């Protein structure tokens, strides 16, 4: 049924309909509304049977999910930012053990400096943790991806992270078509674990593996992740059949058939990008977009196929590898190695800075005019004067003090233009 509600409430309702048996979570902005709503649904037996574990940390949350999943329960958690980092060790255990846990990541920046707003630093920091990573463009897609995520996780016995932009999606009120419980039950069979700890039939999960077999176990992890490249489109197609709308998949092209320029991005910024593309199309500019829906595993063939006929590819990403460059950009370059298109790496929207249509328009103009170097990371809307003043201070003073506090003093505002 179509409803106007907050993204977090919509996701909580969808997760509830997936009938999780154990939810272990620790609140952290901007994920808190999701787990608050879920804990209330457990209290009122709207999710039943289900154990809600109020754990003492994110490390404990993921550890509890690992235990629950290994014992054969459908397990769910949600986190963001530093919370994901605090789980890091357990994330690798969940994926290494092949446990089909589903987690919502309400994407948020990572400190220092501490920042509660949206970017993709958190999910990108764990891109190689062995979790499947799906990115939602809208709250509708966030709902749909969670339903698909449980099925994907359990079919492959792998953990899945559903990434949705913190605040921009989690706290946005917009219309969402929530499915019925019957629809979800038809789509998502009950959990039949591939491996299960059972006192009646004792077995070991998580034995130590030495040099004689470690490579082989890791090879199988890689092979299994790559299977998701087949499973994800199949599940998305099944979803369309059952729910009557398209959601998820590996990639999605927008007005890209004859495009000379294709903009690549992940998550909610695609809506803003598509508005700009429509404006430019009206002026005859041949431009389109490619939405990356699944970042891990990396759909290398689909990305190459979608981009190979373009002259230039502009990657807009909300995170970067400090001292190296773009992250999504590097993956796109890998997909396009030996191919024609020039790739531009743009980092934007860090720590909640709004990505506006105006900024995107001028960025694209700059690219068309040849003013952006393709092999250097470009920061959208960088306040160059602020940076230069701070660099000057560092060069001149013996004890220049911390950058963050110096810059805040220069600018004289705190968080007034953030989002």
């Amino acid at each position: 049924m179509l409803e106007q509600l907050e993204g977090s409430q919509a996701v909580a309702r969808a997760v509830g309909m997936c009938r999780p048996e154990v939810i272990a979570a620790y609140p952290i902005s901007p994920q808190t509304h999701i787990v608050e709503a879920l804990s209330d649904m457990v209290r009122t037996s709207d999710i039943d049977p289900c154990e809600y574990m109020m754990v003492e940390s994110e490390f404990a949350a993921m550890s509890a999910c690992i235990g629950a999943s290994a014992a054969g329960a459908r397990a769910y958690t949600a986190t963001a930012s530093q919370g994901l980092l605090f789980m890091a060790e357990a994330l690798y255990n969940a994926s290494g053990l092949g446990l089909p846990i589903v987690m919502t990541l309400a994407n948020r920046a990572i400190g220092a400096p501490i920042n509660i707003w949206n970017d993709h630093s958190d999910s990108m920091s764990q891109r190689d943790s062995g979790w499947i990573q799906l990115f939602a463009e809208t709250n509708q897609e966030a709902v749909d991806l969670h339903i698909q995520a449980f099925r994907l996780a359990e079919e492959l016995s792998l953990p899945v992270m559903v990434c949705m932009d913190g605040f921009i999606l989690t706290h946005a009120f917009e219309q969402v078509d929530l499915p019925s419980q019957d629809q979800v039950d038809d789509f998502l069979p009950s959990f039949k674990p591939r491996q299960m700890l059972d006192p009646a039939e004792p077995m070991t999960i998580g034995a130590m593996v030495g040099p004689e077999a470690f490579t082989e176990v890791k090879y199988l992890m890689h092979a299994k992740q790559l299977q998701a490249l087949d499973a994800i489109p199949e599940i998305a197609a099944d979803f369309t059949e059952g729910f009557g709308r398209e959601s998820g998949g590996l990639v999605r092209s927008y007005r890209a058939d004859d495009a000379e320029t294709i903009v690549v991005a992940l998550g909610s910024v695609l809506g803003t990008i598509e508005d700009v593309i429509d404006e430019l199309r009206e002026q005859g500019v041949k431009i389109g977009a490619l939405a990356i829906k699944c970042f891990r595993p990396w759909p290398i063939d689909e990305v190459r196929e979608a981009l190979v006929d373009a002259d230039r590819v502009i990657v807009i990403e909300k995170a970067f590898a400090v001292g190296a460059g773009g992250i999504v950009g590097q993956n796109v370059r890998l997909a396009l190695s030996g191919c024609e298109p020039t790739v531009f790496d743009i980092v934007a929207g860090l720590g909640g800075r709004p990505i506006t249509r105006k900024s995107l328009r001028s960025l694209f103009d700059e690219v068309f005019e040849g003013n952006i170097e393709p092999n250097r990371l470009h920061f959208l809307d960088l306040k160059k004067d602020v940076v230069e003043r701070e660099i000057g201070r560092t060069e001149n003073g013996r004890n220049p003090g911390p950058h963050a506090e110096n810059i805040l003093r220069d600018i004289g505002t705190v968080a007034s233009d953030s989002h």
Partner: protein
Amino acid sequence: MVTASELLSVAAFDEGRHAQAFPTFGSERTGAPVVSFCRIDDKAIRTREPVSHPDAVIVQDPTLLHQVDLFGGLDPDGYILLNSERGFDELGMGEFISAFQPERVRTMPATAIAREHLGRPLPNSVLLGGFAGLCDLISLDAVTQALRDRFPGKLGDSNTAAATAACEHVRESLTGGVHA
């Protein structure tokens, strides 16, 4: 304020339109300036950027007038609804407000109306009702429906009464030609 923009989006949704509401979050402390946005359209809303050129600005706390550029990006044909017992002239805004169309700008004692109907100084419902009276971007019926959905029972009744009184207050000022 966040609740107000959420309710406005629900009211627009109830009228069969597309709506998107989202807040800005500054430092999370009571009393900090909060801005919340709402877009209403007849087609799906894709953009996620903050609203930089609003059609209407609703101000809950007039003490922000001297702290924040509240009306940046608002065109002269835009709407302004400001919570104050004083008029624009008294607030020192006379010259600024003269650039706008007189029937599209109002101050109203939203906190006082809220006290009267809700017993508490919570002006959200009042401002939404007043906004429905000021322009045809949203109907009073849709606003009161959204209020009843959010606040069941007696709370819904009192919020609906507050919104209705506010709507009438603004409409009277419009027909009376009083530049409140």
